[in-house]
């Protein structure tokens, strides 16, 4: 039994500490999103966090498990926060509740709770909402620094009553850059498409700045050694590579790698979603493959598939591969001539 424990010396953070660091690292991203999309982002995050905690408390009570330590580890809060930032600003409360319920109850607790869920809970919640409520899930208003303030009263009202008058729908919905590019049509050349100013002024730069804010938070996590570099680097690397291949093949139809990196959920997903330790691969090699797989899937789905953004689906698909990845990437321990999975070691067994 080892007697020395991390807590007494404060070198290694506790699980709760790790979770809180990740939550803290989302603040730049949330800040940037609030700047461009209004206070609805914050109300989303708060509501999602609240619903997630409530769902966790409810299901733990039903499972007759201790509630307090589980809520105290902040993992449910983190799931809520991550789900909240994925939702269009000021989503109706029931939408958030359904997402949080799916994330916490179905994806996490029904599999055994923290540490046992094979899929990223926030992405399960998000994917469920995306396929079930596509109308609500695409209500991204065009980013407008701070003028969203005037919009906030209306959207907050919409959030509270849980539905939107049809007239407001048009005012709120706007294509995201990925969405716009996806639906430009095959005939149109990319250059013509951009020249036609398909998005309101500043949309692209807004999404880019939001992405950079997520990058900043992610770098903090890497520097603090909360996450390792393997998954984000592998994911962004493979995205760049595959996007570059498409782009080099036909620049008139495919978006540039930089466009893929700086729009949509790419950087958020690379640092905050794909790196979820519970549902990601474990060994270094497995992490590299896992990250690269996500990157490849994101580009393939975005380019050839039916959804403009694909981070959630790519992550969930790669979550499926994790058990296999873990089995086939067992590192070679010291003193073994070959990888352990290839030959049963000699020795006591």
């Amino acid at each position: 039994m080892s007697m020395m424990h991390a807590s007494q010396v404060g070198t290694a953070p506790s699980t709760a500490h790790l979770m809180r660091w990740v939550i803290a690292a989302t603040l730049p991203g949330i800040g940037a999103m609030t700047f461009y999309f209004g206070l609805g982002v914050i109300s989303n995050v708060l509501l999602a966090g609240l619903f997630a905690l409530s769902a966790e408390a409810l299901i733990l009570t039903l499972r007759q498990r201790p509630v307090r330590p589980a809520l105290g580890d902040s993992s449910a809060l983190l799931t809520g926060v991550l789900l909240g930032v994925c939702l269009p600003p000021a989503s109706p409360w029931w939408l958030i509740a359904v997402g949080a319920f799916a994330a916490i109850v179905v994806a996490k607790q029904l599999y055994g709770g923290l540490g046992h869920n094979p899929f990223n809970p926030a992405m399960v919640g998000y994917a469920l909402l995306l396929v079930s409520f596509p109308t609500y899930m695409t209500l991204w208003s065009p980013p407008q620094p701070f003028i969203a303030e005037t919009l906030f009263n209306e959207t907050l009202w919409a959030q509270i009553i849980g539905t939107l008058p049809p007239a407001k729908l048009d005012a709120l919905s706007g294509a995201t850059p990925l969405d716009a590019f996806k639906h430009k049509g095959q005939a149109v050349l990319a250059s013509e498409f951009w020249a036609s100013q398909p998005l309101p002024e500043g949309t692209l730069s807004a999404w880019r700045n939001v992405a950079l804010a997520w990058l900043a938070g992610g770098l903090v996590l890497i520097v603090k050694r909360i996450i390792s570099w393997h998954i984000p680097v592998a994911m962004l690397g493979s995205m760049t590579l595959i996007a570059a291949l498409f782009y080099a093949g036909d620049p008139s139809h495919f978006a540039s790698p930089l466009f893929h990196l700086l729009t949509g959920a790419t950087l958020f997903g690379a640092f905050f979603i794909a790196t979820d330790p519970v549902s990601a691969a474990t060994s270094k090699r497995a992490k590299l493959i896992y990250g690269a797989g996500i990157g490849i899937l994101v580009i393939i789905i975005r380019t050839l598939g039916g959804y403009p953004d694909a981070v959630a689906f790519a992550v969930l698909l790669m979550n499926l591969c994790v058990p296999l990845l873990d089995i086939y990437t067992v590192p070679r321990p010291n003193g073994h001539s070959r990888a352990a999975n290839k030959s049963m070691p000699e020795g006591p067994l």
Partner: protein
Amino acid sequence: MPAYEFPGGIYPPERKIHSNQAPLQAAPLPTLVTLPLKQHAGNAATPCVAVGDDVKVGSLIAQRNGMISAHLHASISGTITHISNQAITIEADGRDSWQTLPPLDWRTDSPEKLLERLDSGGLAGLGGAGFPTYIKAQVAEHHPIDTLVVNAAECEPYITADDLILRSYPNDILEGAQLIARLCGAPRIIIGIEDNKPEAISALEHALSKIQHPATIVLKVIETRYPSGGERQLIKKVLDRDVPSGGLPADIGALCHNPGTLLAALHAVRDGKPLVERVVTLTGETISAPGNYWVRLGTPVGTLLDSVGLMPDQLHQVIVGGPMMGTPLTTLSSPVIKTTNCLIAASITELPPAPMESPCIRCGACERVCPAQLLPQQLHWYARAENDSTLAKLNLFDCIECGACSYVCPSFIPLVKDYRSAKQRIRLKQIETAKSEHAKHRFEFRQARLAREEAEKQARRQARLAQHQKPAGGGTGNHATPEVDLRSLRIAQAAAKAAVKKAEKVLARAAEQDPKQRFDDLETQLATAQENLKAADARLANARASTTQKETP
């Protein structure tokens, strides 16, 4: 400076400063010692004294039992007051009179003599596992050893015993190293020491500059990182060689000893002093005079700690060994034994109990620090699930139980505890399956013993016959003796000899790989081989006698 690296490792706070300030001193002589019969790897020793016997310091009180075992000597002079299955108790007479063995010279005396001395001195490794020292030399017999590695890393927090003896006896330790190097034929000695012991390093450098040494001695100062004192990690660090999984350092031409063992070996050889005392680090916040002390084996921990100013009201727990790999003591009446390198009398704020365990989130922190490059979190899942075949695939038995993973685990999972119990469970399973095998071997042993007795009886009868027949000038007896084939008997004897050697080798190897195991079965097989050899000897002698008898007339 070596550029070699072992993977993983951690930097726990050292806390060595508590105990490395005071000079090495002798703890007060105990008035009573309890000497456990098992202070080493392998079988417990067998008492060879009786209650009421008077003994001196160094008197043999228990003999080793089987090959993987060590002799035990009285550590104080006095009277044997109690003998149990576990321990021998001696009450002191206060005279501290010694009974030493005749001094030897490691440079000139034969290796056999020196090895015999290591055996009769009761030497066992003073590092942790307590492996009998003469066996280690025997393991080396079958492999060319090119390097003796002196493990002076002492990477556990708190412990400074090696540090202090290196400062106090640099010359003796270098001599001890050369003694062992001579025995295993190593032309080179490398001392691996962490850079947090500047005084020990300069003492060694000074000693090296002054003495003449037949073997090349290299001092390698390595960066301080836990667990660089692990045998495999240190060898990687100073030699850049990987000890094969399930193998021994001897397989790659290295032998590892810690300074305390080398010092004790020299004392046994040069001064004829059996292993009756050792240096123990006494430390922790509840001790007013922490430091390193020469302590007689068998001294109760309680009296020892009292003598260095234990503050009992603040004491939370006493840990034997370092904080990373040590174990908490359940009672202060436990004695100091050959492997006790450190006693930490900790307050509750110093080493608080672990916080409540929370679920593993597969964060991989454990994997990053694992010096054996295992996947601790996977081992954790499968150990809890008791999935032994997967544990084997994940190389559970390569785990050195250093505790780095538990140390960094954000969920405070007692990982090493899980691994230890999984190993224990798997071993028990193996023991179950080995039991029938063992029964077979015991039967074979019985057969061999009967055959040996029969052969010896025949030899005696033959001898008697020869005596009877001599005066008679006989010749009739020759017809009664069946024709014997001397040659085939000689071959049988040689084969029996080889079988004994092989059994010894197998046992020594198995025991060194896993000192915590019991080796009844292998010991039985060795005993069988020995019986066979005796029988073969007797038959050969018998045959020779009858042949000469035949030739006499």
